């Protein structure tokens, strides 16, 4: 019951108005299957017969028959075809995210006209006749050939891939930006533009490391896996994110739900989750530059990093070699050690939990190797005993194990020349002593074997050479911090240089099979499971993956034509972006609780067609764009009024099915139109709106690819897809506009309408700047012509007479009512600057105003400390002197009137380090009034009544005194006369720019940019 109701109401996301009536048609018909295996989405898409339709004229492609059959079944009528201007606007915005230019519109209209071979006046083109196929297919090809296509459709995929340019929350030691994200983004865009077959598109994103050359640009594809949040390095969470992006992204399966227990609804047991966990756990992340870099600075930073890393790895390994006994003992009480991700050691002397686990895995996987048996065989034999078993038969078990061939003589000696060990701990301790001795004794063949054992790259006494991103847990905090800092230096240089780089995952030596974490907790290990594909899809023949981590095999199983989900999921996504809603509305959940498809046969037909066309995404676009359902008007068919009898007869009229259809059509009850009975009106998303505004104002920078830049920076005029996406500090504006949450795989964006969106366009500088540019670009035209030009640029149509009149009236009204003069800027008596005070002559030698206001403080440059004055800074409360005595900071008060004033306030120098500061109050007329040397103390800087003359300056000067060290201070003097008060803190302000009001035409253009006609798509 619950499921059924849900099916009615769930598609709130950006579900489209016209689908409201849909629920009653299909959704209730399919009850949830009792046997999960029989769920529709797990069945292969079957060959589908094209449904029969009555109106055989309407369909332009086979897919139209599926739509029409359903419409006819409910007695609904498709809408007339859209007119050419509407269609070219729709297709261009849909395919490229940008509106067409007036020239492109004219060309398409002209192509339609020419293809008709008869003269058609514009009204006739509006009459709802289908437009000529040749003109449309030419337009489709032109659109698909534009780089803007990949920029638009690549962004749709980036929503799926939870694209971000930052790692999320990180400790301050590490660079928070990704090096590789722009390269991945550009790879996705290029893949769409080049129509990379979708199966290969997926394979590369999951396993390019095993398919492409070591220097192939396709390695960038792996950003799909590695672009997720870093979860401050907690492996389980990183893997969880990767499992989610892969399974929901490609197959619309919510495998993530099985992390703690079997999936509640879908046939995904917890074991399957950990089978995939094992695939992703067997890999290290590896940053791979994709082009030659000859940069001395980078080489230098890398060398520093490499040297530090080698040194610390060796130091850690040395400690590991000395403490084998303790690590063996630790194997007996694994539960004492914190889990992965919360196991940073504080001191170098601590047992390294990561090494404890490395020992555990090593003992598990390598126990059978001869080289291991000969040394650890006896230990392994007794370690298998329980405490009581050890007490009973430990000695015997040990003795028997020591009799195995090839046991290292030192081991034999340690256990035969002394009384048998009383506990497992003692066994481990003896092992520890053997290795310690081997390290200190001179080299002999016997010690060589032991030493080689300790230095084998696979040995748990070695710290893996996999970079700080993978091996940070082996070092104490201070070392980890220093290595991350050096890695950050390298990363920052790579980002600065804009080097294309891939963050790939590379398989490690396969470890033991993954174990289930009971209730998702890594400290509660359950059964061991093979690395293998999901049971529900692999079927009874399922075999464990055989090669390495199994990641390539996993990718192949996903991108396989026999996978019932992959093709369906992608055609559904394409459909959704063309029509606003998918055939399955829960686009990333095809599980048992998902919405059944509204047109199941169409979904299957499209999926099969997709694969038979070689997984070509562009082929799917061609098919959908060429369809009658896509080319419909957004205004539904209405049976009345009848067409005017005066309609010009022409040769096409009798082939137009609509007129005949009309008489057949029963009168539908009032209510929302049937689904697909008209094209859904679409609202432009944030990127379409922003890019369109830049485009129509002629300012859009068409540069392709490269570094990401702040979208809200006024100077950034590139397409939004190249915007810097910061998952940790996603600007409020982007959230407000329902931009894809870069933490969660987003299949369907929300579509909300809130006043903050309006405020952004109304008050923010973005729309105002575009309005100015567009007004300037059309400046040379006379008023009515200028309005016509604006309408054709913005709306792809000619304004009506009423439109022109409305515009002219507005302009006249604005002109008749000029804006008030901006309120006079209240002259502030305070100035902020730096200068040198000569304390022996009691003279201020100079005063130079601080040039930059940060919003909080006056300072030398945008970055503080910065500029010529270094640390010099003045805030409302106090400040900091400049780096030398030449740059004392000066808060200056210019007396506005003749008055008798009193100065109050104290100077507070808080910090203990350093030698404090010097402070002076100096009048331009009366000389030095007061001075103080102060360190880690507070001193009253008040002055009693004194007279000042208008224009006289009183300077409050602070300099560093002796040395530049911890010189920040608090000092906000207050000056009071009998009538007035000037308070340094309350009066503190930045430069007050005069408001510059938009000119009349700019105001008009801004309104056009804010209009619904601009923001919606018919």
């Amino acid at each position, binding site marked *: 019951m619950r499921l059924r109701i849900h099916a009615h109401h769930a*598609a709130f996301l950006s579900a489209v108005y016209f689908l409201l009536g849909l629920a009653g048609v299909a959704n209730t018909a399919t009850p949830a299957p009792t046997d999960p295996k029989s769920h529709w989405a797990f069945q292969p898409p079957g060959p589908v017969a094209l449904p029969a339709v009555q109106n055989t004229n309407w369909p332009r492609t086979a897919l139209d028959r599926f739509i029409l059959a359903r419409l006819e079944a409910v007695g609904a009528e498709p809408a007339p075809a859209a007119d050419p201007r509407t269609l070219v606007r729709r297709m261009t915005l849909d395919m490229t995210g940008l509106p067409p230019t007036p020239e492109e519109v004219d060309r398409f209209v002209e192509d339609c006209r020419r293809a008709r071979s008869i003269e058609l006046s514009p009204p006739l083109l509006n009459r709802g006749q289908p437009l000529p196929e040749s003109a449309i297919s030419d337009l489709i090809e032109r659109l698909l050939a534009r780089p803007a296509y990949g920029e638009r459709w690549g962004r749709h995929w980036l929503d799926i891939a939870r694209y971000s340019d930052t790692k999320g929350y990180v400790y301050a030691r590490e660079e928070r930006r990704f090096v590789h994200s722009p390269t991945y983004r550009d790879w996705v865009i290029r893949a769409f533009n080049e129509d990379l077959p979708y199966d290969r598109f997926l394979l590369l994103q999951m396993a390019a490391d095993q398919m492409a050359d070591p220097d192939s640009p396709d390695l960038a594809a792996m950003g799909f896996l590695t672009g997720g949040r870093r979860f401050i390095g907690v492996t389980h969470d990183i893997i969880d994110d990767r499992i989610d992006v892969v399974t929901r992204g490609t197959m619309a399966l919510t495998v993530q739900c099985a992390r703690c227990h079997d999936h509640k609804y879908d046939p995904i047991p917890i074991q399957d989750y950990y089978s995939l966990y094992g695939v992703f756990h067997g890999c290290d992340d590896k940053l791979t530059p994709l082009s030659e870099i000859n940069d001395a600075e980078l080489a230098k930073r890398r060398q520093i990093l490499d040297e530090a890393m080698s040194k610390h790895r060796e130091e850690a390994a040395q400690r590991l070699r000395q403490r084998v006994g303790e690590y063996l003992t630790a194997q007996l009480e694994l539960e004492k050690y914190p889990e992965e991700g919360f196991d940073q050691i504080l001191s170098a002397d601590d047992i390294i939990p990561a090494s404890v686990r490395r020992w555990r895995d090593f003992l598990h996987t390598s126990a059978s190797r001869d080289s291991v048996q000969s040394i650890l065989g006896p230990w392994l034999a007794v370690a298998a005993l329980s405490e009581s078993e050890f007490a009973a038969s430990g000695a015997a078990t040990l003795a028997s194990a020591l009799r195995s061939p090839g046991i290292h003589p030192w081991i034999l000696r340690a256990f035969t020349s002394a009384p048998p060990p009383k506990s497992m701990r003692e066994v481990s301790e003896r092992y520890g002593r053997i290795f310690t001795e081997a390290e200190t004794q001179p080299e002999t063949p016997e010690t060589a074997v032991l030493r080689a054992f300790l230095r084998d790259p696979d040995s748990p006494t070695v710290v893996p050479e996999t970079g700080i991103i993978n091996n940070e847990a082996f070092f104490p905090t201070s070392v980890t911090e220093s290595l991350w800092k050096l890695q950050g230096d390298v990363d920052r240089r790579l980002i600065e240089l804009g080097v294309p780089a891939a963050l790939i995952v590379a398989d490690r030596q396969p470890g033991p099979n993954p174990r289930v974490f009971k209730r998702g907790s890594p400290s509660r290990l359950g059964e061991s499971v093979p690395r293998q594909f999901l049971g529900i899809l692999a079927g009874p023949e399922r075999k464990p993956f055989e090669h390495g981590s199994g990641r390539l095999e996993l990718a192949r199983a996903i991108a396989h034509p026999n996978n019932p989900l992959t093709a369906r999921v992608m055609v559904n996504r394409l459909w959704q972006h063309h029509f606003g809603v998918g055939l399955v509305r829960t686009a990333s959940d095809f599980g048992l*609780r998902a919405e059944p498809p509204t047109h199941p046969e169409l979904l299957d037909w499209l999926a099969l067609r997709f694969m038979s066309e070689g997984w070509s995404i562009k082929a799917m676009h061609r098919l959908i764009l060429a369809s009658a359902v896509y080319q419909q008007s957004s205004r539904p068919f209405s049976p009345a009024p009848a067409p005017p009898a005066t309609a010009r007869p022409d040769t096409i009229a009798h082939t137009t099915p609509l007129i005949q259809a009309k008489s057949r059509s029963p009168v539908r009850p009032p209510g929302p139109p049937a689904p697909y009975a008209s094209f859904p009106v679409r609202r432009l998303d944030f990127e379409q709106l922003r890019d369109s505004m830049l485009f129509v104002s002629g300012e859009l920078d068409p540069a392709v690819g490269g570094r990401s830049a702040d979208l809200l920076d006024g100077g950034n005029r590139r397409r939004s897809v190249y915007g810097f996406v910061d998952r940790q500090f996603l600007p409020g*504006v982007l959230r407000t506009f329902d931009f894809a949450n870069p933490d969660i795989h987003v299949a369907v964006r929300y579509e909300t309408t809130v006043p903050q969106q309006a405020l952004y366009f109304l008050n923010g500088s973005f729309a105002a700047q575009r309005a100015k540019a567009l007004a300037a670009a059309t400046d040379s035209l006379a008023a009515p012509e200028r309005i016509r030009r604006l309408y054709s640029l913005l709306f792809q149509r000619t304004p009506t007479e009423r439109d022109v009149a409305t515009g002219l009236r507005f302009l006249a009204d604005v002109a008749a009512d000029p804006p008030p003069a901006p309120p006079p800027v209240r002259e502030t008596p305070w100035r902020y600057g730096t200068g040198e005070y000569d304390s022996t002559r009691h003279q201020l030698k100079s005063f130079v105003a601080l040039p930059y206001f940060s919003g909080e403080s006056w300072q030398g440059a945008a970055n503080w400390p910065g500029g010529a004055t270094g640390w010099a800074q003045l805030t409302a409360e106090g400040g900091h002197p400049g780096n030398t005595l030449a740059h004392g900071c000066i808060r200056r008060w210019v007396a506005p009137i003749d008055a008798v004033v009193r100065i109050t306030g104290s100077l507070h120098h808080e910090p203990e380090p350093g030698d404090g500061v010097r402070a002076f109050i100096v009048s331009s007329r009366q000389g030095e009034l007061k001075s103080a040397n102060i360190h880690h103390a507070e001193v009253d800087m008040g002055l009693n009544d004194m007279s000042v003359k208008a224009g006289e300056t009183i300077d409050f000067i602070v300099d560093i005194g002796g040395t530049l060290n911890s010189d920040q201070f608090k000092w906000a003097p207050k000056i009071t006369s009998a009538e007035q008060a000037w308070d340094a803190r309350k009066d503190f302000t930045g430069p007050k720019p005069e408001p510059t*009001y938009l000119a009349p035409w700019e105001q*008009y253009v801004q*309104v056009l940019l804010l*209009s619904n006609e601009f923001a919606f798509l018919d």
Partner: protein
Amino acid sequence: MNRSPLYPPTRREFLKRCGMGLGALSLGGMLAQAESPLGIRASHFAPKARRVIHFFLNGGPSHVDTFDPKPALAKYAGQSLPSENLRTERKTGVAFPTPFQFQRYGRSGLEISELFARTAAHADDIAVIRSMHALVPNHEPSLMLMNCGDSVQARPSVGSWVLYGLGTENQNLPGFVAMCPGGMPIKDSENWQAGFLPGVFQGTFVDPQHREVEKLIENIRSPHATLSMQRRQLDLLRQLNADHERQRGSDPRLEARIESFELAFRMQLEATDAFDLRREPAHIREMYGDHVHGRQTLIARRLLERGVRFVQLWHGAGQPWDHHENIEASLRKNAGEIDGPIAALMTDLKQRGMFEDTLILWGGEFGRTPSVELGEGGKSKLGRDHNHYGFSVWLAGGGIQGGQAYGATDDFGFRAVEKKASVHDLHATMLHCLGFDHERLTYRHAGRDFRLTDVSGEVLRPLVS
């Protein structure tokens, strides 16, 4: 157009969807009154609290120095505790008794330390939960657990859930405001994230160090038009949009966008007013104190008064309550900064008749160890390490039975032992005060119905009955 739908049918669909999640709600009634995702919605049952203010002492306030007196610690001062110290983030050593005096307050005799002496004047309204516990001794996951009910996954914050459940009473202000002086706490905006809920439910961050309203709320004033110029522009916009809609037939999505510009216009006035403390009488400003914590608490009251649903007040950027060393002086300073404002707020809410339906939450992401933290070479740092095994938070106001301490930690305050309360229990209790059955306030995402309390949580009945 006297009742133009502010939001499109997608919104209605959304609400129907909410209806599914909210379960027992009357679908029809809800649809009639709420067309905006932020429109007012009824809860499952009559709520005691209509709004929430959360004082977040980020970093982890020490419970044994504030609301959980442990005289037994004094007996062991300088000696090892009789039981082994629990494993926390760092090494800790001997027992470290509180340097602060505890005293009984009010008729209830609730014991509170001198650090919160002014707040303690309201002791009979305060219910301390002394048996809180979390999962790990690390800030990041514990912040996420306390704010979003999950240590790891991107989940909606408590404020987002409340906004989703109840909407907001003032469309001209953000419904959920998070204030933090001087910048962001650890984990930044993840603390007030909307997770998988629509972005409108996310907390709006405000740095109360700013005094100018332009800096408090983005784009709240136009630098390029006066209000009267803007009015004329909006009149033109309205006319163009009306012409546009006339040719297309009524579409609520078009109307929603038209209305959003009118709302924006009004918001410019309302928001300016709400954040402008000059409009408060001097004695009120003095009661809260003219410093950033006083100001942000007073702004919070003005917001709550104007219908904002959820306000979270952070102590400061980073984690000011993370007292690993020299805890005595730091605690005195931090508590001194907020004790007055909290007491003032409680007094002020009472005198305005808002106390009974405002839920107050005080707490951090965990507490601190009763044993002293050790530095290099085992030297005492005179501070305390993180402690997730046991800590205190307190609730007051809407629906809370004050003057009681619920649950208890062991003799030394290390571990919650009596009537243990999880973070889910706390959330369940808060939702209860707001009129929700926490098991029925759900949202369908990625294949299942999620709730704030995941799969557990019990309402702490003695606090609310």
